[in-house]
């Protein structure tokens, strides 16, 4: 066992750069997945079968196929269609799209959990459709599902290293570059691994507290 602290120190500048990219992907990816997930969830409830069926099929397909393959699909196929994005943008889109299919299920459960009386009250007050959603249903649903969404943000964090596969300069890619330059694999990779535990564990404690607090 030979652990070299100076290698850790040398890696730190790259580590910070990578951490910033990882967090950027996480924030933007979360926003995409939260927004798109809501769109899917509304699609699940559409009156027309011709909306419901495709939405169900697409989300099911995206949810059961690997993010890595979707990442490569977007990265290589979008340019063929004449759409040119940077690796970072493609990666963020892929992760947002992938997780939107999970958040969609969360929204679905949250919306279903709003008591039927609330819908009836909105009808009785003859609120227009968008007011029913924005003022009555969603505020109640969102409160319940906040912890579940939090869990998916943590899951998303742990999937950001996949973006190294299309050479986005996030934490894993930075550690690979460091190793390629210095031939030291142990320190950079271990630091990155430990960093993930140090971020993910407190985050999951936070979500658990939130869960308990919102339970009543």
């Amino acid at each position, binding site marked *: 066992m030979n652990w070299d602290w100076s290698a850790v120190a040398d890696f730190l500048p790259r580590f910070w750069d990578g951490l910033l990219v990882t967090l950027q992907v996480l924030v933007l990816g979360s926003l995409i997945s939260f927004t798109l997930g809501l769109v899917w969830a509304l699609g699940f409830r559409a009156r027309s079968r011709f909306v419901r069926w495709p939405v169900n099929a697409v989300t099911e*397909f995206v949810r059961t196929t690997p993010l*890595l393959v979707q990442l490569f699909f977007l990265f290589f196929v979008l340019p063929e269609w004449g759409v040119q994005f940077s690796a970072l943008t493609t990666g963020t889109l892929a992760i947002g799209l992938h997780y939107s299919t999970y958040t969609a299920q969360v929204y679905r459960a949250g919306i279903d959990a709003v008591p039927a009386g609330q819908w009836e009250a909105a009808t009785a007050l003859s609120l227009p459709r968008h007011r029913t959603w924005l003022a009555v249903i969603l505020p109640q649903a969102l409160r319940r599902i906040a912890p579940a969404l939090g869990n998916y943000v943590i899951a998303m964090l742990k999937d950001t290293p996949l973006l190294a596969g299309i050479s986005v300069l996030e934490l894993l890619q930075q550690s690979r570059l460091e190793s390629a330059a210095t031939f030291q694999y142990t320190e950079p990779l271990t630091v990155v691994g430990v960093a993930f535990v140090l971020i993910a564990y407190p985050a999951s404690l936070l979500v658990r507290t939130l869960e308990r607090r919102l339970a009543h």
Partner: protein
Amino acid sequence: MTAGLWQNWVLPGIWITLQLLIASAALAALVAFTVGAARTHRSRTVRFLAGLYTEVFRGTSALILMFWLFFVLPPLAGWQLVPMWAAILALGLSYGAYGAEIVRGALNAVPKAQREAGVALSFTPWQRLRLVLLPQAVPEMIPSFCNLLVELLKGTALVSLLGVGDVSFAAYLVRLATQESGGIYTVTLLVYFVIALVITRSMKALERRTKANLGVVAK
């Protein structure tokens, strides 16, 4: 797509993906039951260690764990894993940690009286677990395990980054050879989708069977 690529890479790739899935699922199940049962153990130390295991392996990314086993373990331990084994180990250990939570939850959901009845009949803790608790807990675990198995299937795609020739890696090679991405990646996604479909269908059947054995009607 040329026929040679299909026969020499994609089909064997699918086979490797299936092998990875089966081997790492077996390891994950072993880890899940051991660690999950340990989390309901009487001794505080055992519970703590099992809890530590789940938090660490759930906390880090499966891909980083895979790289760590492949690149960091050799200089530390003095031996090198072949990529396939590093992959199985990483997938099994990290998805096992998720499985442990499922096992723990299901064991805790068995009514307390069942445990007490086992004590009253002076069963050993092992007999209690094997004869009373697990048979009732296992059917409850199946839907969650089904989801986890699909996640594990998706996780197997990560091994292509270590150069293991699974179906994702085959797709990468075919893309390099043919300079065409749309077709091969669509096929690859479909392969995963079909495997996932088989998994969910068979787990549904398994759930119905195990519940019927207990005299419970599956939803």
